[in-house]
């Protein structure tokens, strides 16, 4: 139907418009204990960026030790590792890789992408004034904050921080392997982090179900919204399973239960494998929880910067849902070396391989979107293209680990580390940067510097690939994970030059992030003022000022078309190449062309 007809029918259903609530006053209510999703989103963003930096510094230290085993760390060595003369000790090393993983997954990516961009963007993208439960939203941030405080405290307790890896397998994470309070604090911090995620999930799901603007059907939602929506469903269902693992581990550590404790302890009839089942039942959906927002964001941004609709939106949505469903039944591929029954093992192998079908459809939609576009190579687009590249490599390396034969050799080697970093630290990180560069104008009302952005991209993209593809290589050559000093093994001695090369690339990667820091804070202070719609796209957040007023929309918009109406023929008459989602135009849009008519010759 025509735009006018849509509006008429939507208005009939809209009922009374929500009253605009008064804006809060006072510093605390506006910036600290705010219930405004935009403020909470920025709070999560800054918290997460801070921990991203800390986790990154930890990575630099790990790489230092692997490049020069036993050498004192320059500059900060005496300060951080005083008792051992500036050298990273084996104990410190295990704490470093434990906290690096924990921080990056739970305290960097989760708050930045899901807490930060999810909060800031979701109501704006669907045409709402705020989340369904603004006070729950605020509680979710402060719960996360409490979790970070407890995690930080674990560094300062007797016997030090947790050392059982971010996976905290029993019995290493029980009092058998980890007698001190640090591990207990870790368990509590993870639990609180999970509680924050579940609060967020309840909010996001309800918001998407109930607060979409009139006319915003599910199939007109920006893919970013689908990303946050589906991620929240997985969060709501599977973070509680992690909570169960944490609760039982807590009881084992503190109350003398023996759910996971076995071995030579008398009467210990527990099962360490029970921990692995509970952990990975959560753990596998968790990796999809992290990547789904990225898939959503990249899907939208590729369309925006290629100036054409996403290729196969419906197929993509179907594929995302298929991945969500399949992700719940593949977790056993993390446990192939535990001696599980052959039938179970082969089932997990097959199901894991099947996930590659919807995943490849998602990649094809990206490629199809780019083809015959008019690609604008702005910084957000560069990061999206970089994401497509590394996700391709990283995703395909997953197949090696899905195959039991190959996995028996590659399990717990650096091949796994390379695989998941290509997805998490490369594809996901680049999506994160794409999101920052893209929404910075809307969040802060200023433009980031494009030249610095491009420099940041290249100095990030190239070293990222060198570091993590390098890890694929050393894993292939047999180097196992979590090694303080690989030169203990003769077969790993020849890998020292490679390890060193990887570390050098990592240092470059780390240093390059300073460009981002300078750009980010410099632009906050002195960037050019941003217009409402600097990227010239049609989603709803770009119809309001940058930054948006407290109530987002003066009038709740009525949506008449999808989010990617770029290069739309009817836009020509308006002197541009895009149509807004809530933009009413007089003429009925031309039917979908069967052959390209409006592009210049390819």
């Amino acid at each position, binding site marked *: 139907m025509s735009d006018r007809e849509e509006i008429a029918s939507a208005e009939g259903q809209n009922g009374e418009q929500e009253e605009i609530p008064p804006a809060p006053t006072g510093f605390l209510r506006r910036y600290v204990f705010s219930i405004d999703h935009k403020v909470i989103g920025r709070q999560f963003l800054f918290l997460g960026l801070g921990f991203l930096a800390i986790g990154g510094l930890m990575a630099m230290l790990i790489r230092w030790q692997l490049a020069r085993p036993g050498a004192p760390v320059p500059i900060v060595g005496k300060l951080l590792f005083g008792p051992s003369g500036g050298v990273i000790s*084996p104990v410190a090393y*295990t704490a470093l890789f434990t906290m690096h993983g924990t921080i990056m997954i739970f305290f960097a990516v989760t708050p930045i992408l899901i807490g930060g961009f999810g909060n800031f963007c979701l109501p704006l993208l669907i045409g709402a004034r705020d989340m369904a439960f603004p006070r729950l939203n605020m509680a979710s941030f402060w719960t996360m904050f409490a979790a970070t405080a407890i995690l930080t405290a674990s560094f300062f307790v007797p016997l030090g921080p947790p050392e059982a890896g971010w996976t905290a*397998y*029993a*019995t*290493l994470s029980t009092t*058998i*392997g980890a007698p001190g309070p640090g591990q207990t604090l870790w368990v509590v911090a993870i639990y609180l982090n999970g509680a924050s995620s579940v609060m967020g999930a309840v909010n996001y799901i309800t918001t998407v179900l109930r607060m979409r603007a009139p006319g915003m059907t599910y199939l007109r939602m920006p893919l970013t919204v689908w990303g946050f929506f589906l991620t929240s469903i997985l969060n709501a269902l599977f973070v509680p399973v992690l909570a169960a693992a944490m609760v039982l581990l807590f009881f084992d550590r503190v109350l003398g239960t023996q759910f996971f404790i*076995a*071995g*030579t302890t008398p009467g*210990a*009839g*527990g099962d360490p*494998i029970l921990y692995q089942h509970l952990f990975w039942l959560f753990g596998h959906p968790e990796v999809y929880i992290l990547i789904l927002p990225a898939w959503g964001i990249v899907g939208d941004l590729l369309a925006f910067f290629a*100036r054409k*609709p996403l*290729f*196969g*939106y*419906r*197929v993509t949505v179907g594929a995302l849902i298929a991945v969500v469903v399949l992700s719940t039944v593949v977790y056993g591929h993390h446990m192939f*070396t535990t*001696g599980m029954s052959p039938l179970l093992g*082969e089932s997990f*192998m097959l199901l894991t*391989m*099947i996930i590659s*079908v919807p995943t*490849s*459809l998602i990649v094809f939609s990206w*490629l199809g979107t*780019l*083809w015959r576009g*008019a*690609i604008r190579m702005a910084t957000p687009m560069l990061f999206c293209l970089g994401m497509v*590249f590394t996700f391709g490599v990283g995703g395909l390396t997953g197949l*090696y680990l*899905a*195959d039991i*034969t*190959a996995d*028996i*050799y590659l*399990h*717990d080697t650096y091949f796994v580390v390379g695989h998941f970093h290509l997805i998490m630290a490369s594809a996901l990180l680049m999506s994160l940067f794409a999101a920052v560069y893209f929404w910075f104008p809307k969040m802060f009302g200023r433009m980031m510097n494009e030249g610095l952005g491009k420099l940041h991209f290249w100095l990030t993209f190239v070293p990222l690939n060198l570091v993590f593809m390098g890890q694929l290589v050393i894993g*292939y*050559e*047999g180097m196992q994970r979590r*090694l303080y000093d690989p030169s203990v093994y003769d*077969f790993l001695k020849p890998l020292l030059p490679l390890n060193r090369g990887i570390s050098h690339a990592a240092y470059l990667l780390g240093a390059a992030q300073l460009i981002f820091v300078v750009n980010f804070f410099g632009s906050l202070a002195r960037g050019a003022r941003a217009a409402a719609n600097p990227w010239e796209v049609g989603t709803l957040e770009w119809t309001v000022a940058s930054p948006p007023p407290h109530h987002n929309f003066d009038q709740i918009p009525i949506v008449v078309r*999808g989010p990617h109406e*770029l*290069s*739309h023929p009817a836009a020509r008459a308006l002197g541009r190449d895009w149509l807004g989602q809530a933009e009413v135009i007089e003429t009925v849009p031309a039917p*979908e062309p069967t052959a*390209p008519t*409006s*592009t*210049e010759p390819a």
Partner: protein
Amino acid sequence: MHIVLPRDASLDGHLVDGAIGYLTLTTGIAFAAALAFLLAAIFFHRAHARRTRGQHTHGNRPRDRALMFTVALVMFVAIDVTLALRTSRDLESHFWRYPDADPNALRVEVTAQQWAWTFRTAGPDGRFGTPDDVVTLNELDIPVGHPIYLKLRSRDVVHSLYLPNFRTKIDAIPGMTTRIWFQATEPGRFEIACAQHCGVNHYKMRGLLTARLEPEYRDWLARAETDSRLRYDPAAPATTGAWDWETGK
């Protein structure tokens, strides 16, 4: 830069190498094709003075979907299905064919602990936990050309026995007995590593596997059995790292 797998000294390791090789070839082709497409799109379809609009299609037409699904399914069959069938076959006829009934197999009980490996063979009486067992610390001595059948337990946390030159690893889990089998095809000294984070000295949990040809192995075994009888101490805790092979007690 020479990128090589560790030397393969095993009977079935080539199956692992073959799977990895097949994956590298097929995913390499797929990735190269996708990358070519990506680069072509970036180079030829960039915005410039003569290219200001993209093609306004949603990719929803039947032929668009047919293309996407066809490529996805072709990749799935060529890469995943082929590999899965091959792996199933390899698992069932090699890796999971434990030599329970093979009189030539050497049975070894492995006890993992923080941070060492104890290896025990049954000795001439064929029973574990008796004074004639040969018990070695961090050293595993095997004959070439015989199946080596390991059963593993752990005293404390999860460890993982990793033999890079035999392309295999298996976890040792407290409260459970796991198992693995392999066979050496050449003599030599090969390293044993721990592949599951097991505490602060995980990196030092190294062992040495020595594979000897039959005659040399028999010589070694005779010396080792004499040593064991001389050194046997009924009060030593070494006897606790032993269990009945069949019943697990």
